[in-house]
């Protein structure tokens, strides 16, 4: 079936891309690894973790790098689920955000703070 093959190929490509993306992250930058923002609720972290696991777990793909990517994903989500590890990280993020806003001369309530350009720069 032509369409099914195409779809399968596409899924494999998405998986490979995600693995590539995770491996290119700084290994302690947990939010970026999970592709999310500080402030996310704990239960959403596990949701993201499980969703991404379905993609990149070594059981789900032939990509030999999946083992390492999954290891990073696991460590990132575990760290963010653990308050002891998450709090210092969050304060560092808050500092970075404040510095960035000062640098740009914006105010705390600026609309541009919610735009993806800013979010990416912040990260």
């Amino acid at each position, binding site marked *: 079936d032509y369409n099914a093959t195409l779809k399968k190929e596409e899924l494999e490509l998405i998986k490979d891309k995600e693995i590539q993306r995770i491996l290119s992250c700084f290994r302690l930058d947990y939010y970026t690894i999970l592709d999310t923002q500080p402030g996310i609720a704990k239960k959403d972290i*596990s949701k993201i973790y499980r969703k991404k696991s379905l993609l990149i777990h070594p059981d789900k793909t032939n990509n*030999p790098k999946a083992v390492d990517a999954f290891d990073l994903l*696991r460590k990132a989500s575990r760290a963010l689920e653990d308050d002891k590890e998450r709090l210092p990280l969050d304060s560092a993020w808050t500092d970075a955000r404040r510095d960035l806003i000062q640098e740009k001369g914006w105010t705390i309530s600026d609309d541009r703070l919610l735009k993806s350009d800013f979010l990416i720069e912040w990260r």
Partner: protein
Amino acid sequence: MFSITFRQSLRTTGSTCRIPRLPRLSLPIRRFYASGSTIKAAVHKPVKVIGIDLGTTNSAVAVVEGEMPRILENSQGDRTTPSIVAFTTRGDVLVGATAKRQAVVNSENTFYATKRLIGRKFEDDEVQNDISHLSYKVVKHENGDAWLQTTVGENLSYSPSQIGGFVLKEMKHVAETNLNSEAKNAVITVPAYFNDSQRQATKTAGELVGLNVVRIVNEPTAASLAYGMNQKKNGLLAVYDLGGGTFDISVLDIDDGVFEVRSTNGDTHLGGEDFDNVLVKYIVGKFKDSQKGDEDITKNRMAMQRIKEAAEKAKIALSHVHKTRIQIPFIVKDENIDFELAESELDEMTMHLIKKTMEPLKKAISDADLKRSDIDEVIMVGGMTRMPRIRRMVGDFFNKKPNTEVNPDEAVAIGAAIQGAVLSGEVKDVLLLDVTPLTLGIETYGGLFSPLIPRNTTVPCKIQTTYSTAVDGQNSIDVNVYQGERPLVRDNKLIGKFKLTDIPPKPKGVPKIQVSFDIDADGIIKVSALDKDSGKRASITVFGKTGMSQAEVEQLVKQSKKTTKEDQMTLNYLKHVNNLELIVFDSEQAINDWSRFILEEEKESLGRKLSIVKRMISDSRSGDLFDVKLIKAAQVELKDETMEIIQNAGQRSRDARKKVQSHEPN
């Protein structure tokens, strides 16, 4: 009438073809302590994967077909097969119900519950404890492991892995007969609380019989898959698994097809066997109280085996009725055992065992950061969970009635088959995230245990640590790896010792050796090392590990592969030979019955051919003849010839009767 072709084909007996020697195939076995890359070179996607629940007392096999898992029945029509292997004086190896049936008369060579010995050292307390209950002999192998000794043949000893291998081979056979195709790939289950050595030994058991073990899955996790596939429910699930020899408790979070194990705990030496032993002791005590003679019944292996069987039967009965009768006639000379046992009595005498499951239960809940009331559903797996007292206790603990929708005997095999289908890609949108049950660590100065990977960490996982030297010019470092939860290494289980060698001589603290510890999805540990300066792989030597050496495993694999293929061919051939013999009997019978109406020359011709065929049969049995085509041709021609003679004879008999009738009109 015996055609020329037969004679021609007979001539080929001159060039009898012996059983061909097959080329020795060597199975690529993943090295346990690979010094190589930690990344799997190629993840193979196997085609069809069967799921095998290798249980302490019973085993089962299942497969997923068209997204539906089903249990495969053995040749007796049973859905489970006793995990019992027996060696007879005639050199036969019996597996399953046939082995169980002859246990009373051959108790020394009938191996049961060997799963409790797999991956263990002879000196282990659990092993020493078991020895007094077992009817067979446990010996210490060269490497210190517990092995099993037979008293037949050359008094061979077998490793528990080999015995497990015989059972796996039987299950493989069951699958192949059902599926009508070769079953090469398998998922095998182990108790969740099994350590590295026990897992490795189980995997070896599969490899010994030529199975490609694609995954080792934890039993409670597999059971959760069997439950979750049907229910499609999300939530927190507790699996209470009390089988024949082991106890596991796992807490899982099921969320849209992702089965994430939150925590696991257990006791790899607690199960139905222990309940049986308590009851056996009770029966023996009861007998001794009223015994008239002075024979020590515990020294009588056959009597003890009968008591054991009666104990198991009574225990099972008491799951359904409140009272049962234990009757063993003529247990010694003229004395009998005959008394009534109530459910409450059994409950009382095994209460200490039931209570033993409480501590792991509490630990698992707290390790998962949960309260008992958070659990949405409880499922019970393993034959022992049929005991009403256990169901009641678990129900009280969670304040919730256990779900009874899964079959306690079949859920694990079904789950294994589902995981097999997940790995083959047949079932999508399902993922198992399992954990390592025990903390992995190394020995540091003073015999302290320094943890590296805590228990309940999702696998696969890895950790890297850097080692350096303590003195100038030191060229090797010893690292001892342990699994366990105790602060001192001597209380934990030694998984392996390895030595980093060939470190370039440098001042102390300068060399940097990066050691990476991997736990793969099977829960099996791999260690590799890298010299950071040179970027070269450091050499690792492993010793003191439980289990078989690589060479030993390869040797056994070769042997078993050779024998299985040869066995199969010989078996097929001998079946044809047996058929031929039946035809010979039939022919002889027919000649006898119709003797009066068969012409002498026909008798002579057929008799000659029969004697030739008989010689072929005896040559085949002795191994001097091996030619399937020839046997088949003989079958056809002998049958045809006999048929023709019989038809002729029938005609003559009818003619004769007519003659008689016409000559003698009444």
